[in-house]
């Protein structure tokens, strides 16, 4: 199906299942432990051996010697793979840091060896017997120190004449904000079982993008993609860290070949931070110029980030800046330094998530300079129907001001004291903050196969993944709605490369794209049924297990068993629009006036994301993102030790994600909007929108509470303790 014009009225406008809060159809499997995750798929292939990866002990240099003799002689050991004795594996479009092989080390905890043994304990014990000597090289590990040498990435995005407008603006702001590196820290570390049958490779793994994984593995291992099967029906979280094939999959495949039997590997937790990918740190300079009435006349956002010398982009924190606010004169530029840290790559809302931590605080700071309410300032600078500076590019659907107004009213924003540092509640300083949020809503080609059984049961097969987001359920809802059957007459099979290629899960494109693909396949099946029974499948009404076509009524089962497959392809017309999702985020904090500890008391996000396919799981997505935002704002930081070139806090005791006690009251509201430009379902993603802005709302609330502005995340108490009110 080609989606080459905005959707008109269709069956989803009278939906009975899509758009209704629906419990996850895979929920019972999850809560009973019956959903098989990669490492525990004991039944898929017999004779599985255990692999244990050894991570490099230096960040940069060469391995000069590796003695594996003790490991080879250790009990239970089947095989030892030593990187220096092997050719480096190939690369793919999605990997920049080397994954395995050769003597060169380019990042800390790079996989340099793997022990395969009969048991997990034997593999781990033998791995510790490998003795490695290195010739350590100097490296560049410090973004601040390498910032000025960083080249610009691409061309700056300019409109009008920023320099003149900024110079002549009566009210200006020029501030720099720092955001740290962050680790996905998903509950399930990367894991894979690999098995060869002749030249056929099967990987049971944990991956967000099945087709990318298959093709990347072909390129990395130098084998035909057609000989690879990737299966990943359940993931214990990904957040972008599993968009790409990592060492677990590559080394498991190599180890299984070497051992001559299936091998399973899970990356041990201490390896996740440095062996895999992370969200890179940023340094962001924002300059704003405004008239006394608040109208922004000049807006510049420059961002410095980094990646490895072998490729990749920086954390593109300016992504929201061209669209969020009006302003005739603009300058947006990205710079990317080369550092010898581990590879940076996508983490939930790459770009926008840290971008909002800077831009939305800058707007708050500007509002104070202007003596305006931050809400009023945002309203004044709301663009018209088109993207600022691009009069031909319309917003497909944008309700940011509605989000802000609705949120302000629900949150009780009018009770906020605009003068900071004045509201006390016992030992706490109390404040409110808000931020706007934007995240793009891309779409990706997505296919599915839909099977009708003789008894009327529907089965959907697609290589779409469910990374905890609720894909199973929204796909079942889409198929049930389109085929006119109850939800429990639909089975959904995901994550297997034997199924049609889907959009996969990433960039918040999964929900909109994959449901559109399932819809396309259902439409194809309806046509096929129509051909068999002699009616026009597009014109007929499928409901309650029956088909009404003109005057005739058929049972769905009249058609007998059949199946159809199709792929939704999104047309170029979408490029004529700015298709995005918008939110307003509100927050109330209490800062302990003695210790500086921040407690987030209340959070509210009002989201404008088109049709919400399943309000229950969409709410969970936004709430999860709000929790992650609390971590971004207050505690999460990959601490770089620039002497050794590693993230030193590489476990979950040192890298502090929020815990239950950090989260009190969270509310999510979805506007009742539709975006016909995005897909036939008029639905957009929400999973990343929820992390674009809440962290800035927290920062602004801390300022409102204390009168202290900290521009270096995370906002830990050591950064402002000496500026808290004096002790009496």
């Amino acid at each position, binding site marked *: 199906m080609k989606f080459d014009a905005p959707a008109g009225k269709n069956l989803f406008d009278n939906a009975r299942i899509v758009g209704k809060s629906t419990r996850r159809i895979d929920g019972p499997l999850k809560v009973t432990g019956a959903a098989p995750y990669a490492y525990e798929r004991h039944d898929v292939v017999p004779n599985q051996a255990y692999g244990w990866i050894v991570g490099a002990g230096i960040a940069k240099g060469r391995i000069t010697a590796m003695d594996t003799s003790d490991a080879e002689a250790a009990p239970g050991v089947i095989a030892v793979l030593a990187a220096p004795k092997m050719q480096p594996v190939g690369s793919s479009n999605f990997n920049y840091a080397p994954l395995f092989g050769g003597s060169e080390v380019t990042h800390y905890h790079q996989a340099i060896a793997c022990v395969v043994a009969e048991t997990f304990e034997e593999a*781990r014990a033998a791995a510790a017997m490998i003795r490695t000597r290195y010739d350590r090289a100097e490296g560049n590990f410090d973004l601040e120190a390498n910032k000025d040498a960083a080249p610009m990435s691409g061309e700056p995005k300019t409109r009008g004449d920023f320099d003149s407008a900024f110079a002549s603006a009566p009210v200006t702001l020029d501030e720099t904000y720092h955001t740290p590196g962050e680790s996905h820290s998903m509950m399930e570390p990367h894991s894979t079982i690999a098995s060869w049958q002749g030249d056929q490779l099967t990987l049971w793994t944990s991956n967000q993008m099945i087709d990318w994984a298959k093709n990347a593995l072909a390129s990395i291992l130098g084998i035909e993609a057609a000989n690879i099967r990737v299966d990943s029906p359940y993931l214990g979280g990904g957040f972008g860290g599993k968009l790409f094939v990592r060492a677990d999959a590559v080394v498991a495949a190599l180890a299984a070949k070497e051992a001559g039997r299936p091998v399973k590997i899970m990356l041990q937790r201490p390896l996740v931070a440095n062996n895999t990918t992370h969200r890179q740190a940023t340094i962001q300079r924002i300059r704003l110029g405004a008239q006394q009435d608040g109208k922004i006349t000049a807006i510049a956002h420059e961002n410095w980030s980094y990646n490895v010398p072998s490729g990749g982009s920086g954390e593109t924190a300016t992504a929201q800046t061209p669209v969020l606010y009006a302003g005739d004169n603009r300058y947006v530029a990205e710079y990317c330094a080369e550092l010898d840290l581990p590879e940076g790559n996508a983490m939930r809302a790459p770009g926008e998530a840290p971008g909002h931590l800077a831009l939305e605080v800058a707007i708050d700071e500007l509002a104070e300079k202007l003596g305006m309410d931050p809400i009023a300032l945002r309203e004044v600078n709301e663009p018209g129907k088109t993207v600022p500076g691009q009069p031909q590019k319309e917003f497909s659907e944008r309700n940011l001001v509605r989000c802000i107004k609705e949120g302000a009213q629900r949150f009780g924003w009018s009770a906020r004291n605009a003068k900071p540092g004045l509201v006390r509640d016992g030992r706490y300083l109390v404040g409110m903050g808000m931020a706007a949020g934007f995240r793009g809503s891309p779409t990706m080609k997505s296919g599915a196969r839909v099977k009708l059984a003789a008894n009327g049961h529907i089965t959907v097969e697609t290589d779409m993944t469910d990374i905890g987001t609720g894909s199973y359920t929204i796909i079942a809802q889409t198929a049930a709605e389109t085929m006119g059957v109850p939800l429990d007459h639909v089975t959904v099979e995901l994550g297997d490369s034997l199924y049609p290629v889907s959009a996969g899960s990433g960039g918040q494109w999964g929900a909109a794209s994959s449901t559109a693909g399932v819809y396309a396949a259902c439409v194809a099946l309806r046509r096929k049924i129509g051909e068999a029974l002699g009616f026009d499948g597009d014109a007929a009404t499928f409901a309650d297990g029956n088909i009404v076509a003109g005057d005739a009524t058929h049972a769905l089962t009249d058609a007998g068993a059949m199946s159809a497959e199709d792929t939704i392809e999104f047309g170029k017309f979408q490029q004529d629009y700015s298709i995005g999702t918008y939110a307003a985020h509100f927050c109330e904090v209490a800062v302990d006036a003695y210790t500086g500890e921040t407690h987030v008391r209340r959070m509210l996000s009002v989201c404008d994301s088109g049709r919400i396919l399943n309000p229950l799981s969409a709410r969970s997505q936004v709430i999860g993102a709000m929790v992650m935002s609390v971590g971004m704002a207050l505690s999460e930081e990959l*601490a770089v030790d620039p002497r050794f070139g590693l993230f*030193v806090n590489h476990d979950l005791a040192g890298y502090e994600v929020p*815990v239950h006690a*950090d989260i009190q009251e969270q509310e999510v509201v979805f506007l009742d909007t539709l975006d016909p430009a995005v897909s036939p379902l008029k639905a957009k993603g929400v999973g990343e929108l929820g992390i674009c802005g809440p962290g800035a709302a927290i920062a602004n609330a801390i300022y409102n509470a204390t009168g202290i502005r900290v521009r270096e995340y*995370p906002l830990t108490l050591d950064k402002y303790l000496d500026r808290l009110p004096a002790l009496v």
Partner: protein
Amino acid sequence: MKAFTYERAKSPAEAAAAVAGREGAKFIAGGTNLLDLMKLEIEAPTHLVDVQDLALDQIEETSDGGLRIGALVSNTALAAHPKVRKDYAVLTRAIVAGASGQLRNKATTAGNLLQRTRCPYFYDPNLPCNKRVPNSGCAAAEGFSRQLAVVGTSDKCIATYPGDMAIAMRVLDAVVETVTPDGKTRTIPMAEFHRLPGDKPWLDNTLGKGELIVSVRLPAPVGGQHFYQKVRDRRSYAFALVSVAAILNDDGTGRVAFGGVAHKPWRVEAAEALLPQGAGAVVAKAFEGASPTEHNKYKITLAERTLAGVIAEARS
């Protein structure tokens, strides 16, 4: 984890002799810290003597009105004990501020005292650490040190003792009771139980080889208001940046010990004598001679502010 042999001891004296008589032997009780360290081979015992069958899980009143806490009493049971809650509230508050419910169910009183540091450099076998590998150097002193010690440090180590319970026990003047490998008993005041890193940071405490903690004795209750204020980067399941254990009397006098600042619970009696003068005086004295890093000098300010909050709460 290296392979090891394992036995279950039948008596404290037998357990002590078993560990003393064997190179590389260690005790194991709850295992909440030891097993994690063994997985990383930071600890690599060749033999484990499991003490869980020893009948050391009782809390009993002593003749002087105090309490004797068996070495195997779980953190959960100790924190919940009615007399502890009533007369030694600082101890209950300290225990429930630490770890998680699951860990407190498994962790024992003696084991908690023996908890090892959480310095990130101690936890990474690729990096120099004098506590992990004697005389290999200290990566922390000029590294990422915002969690680490500010006082009582040496040029060989700036690790902290990470626990909470011991800070409260220090302020309560608890006494550790042990059995030595020759079957004799010994008592060690909490003040002398943990040691400063000095030249031998690999030694956390003053126990001898094979010496087994059998109980911890609390003196008779001292009254006063009990506080344990733990400051951290998130509200649960995090180690203290600074903690304050305090017992404050109505006349402004009292006792105070600090956690998260040193290689041992940090109580300076000459400093707490200044409590009537306020937090500033106490902290100035308690942290006299401190040698913080750029990353952790805030801890001294934080200690003062946290204690000031506790004093204010006591007065309100």
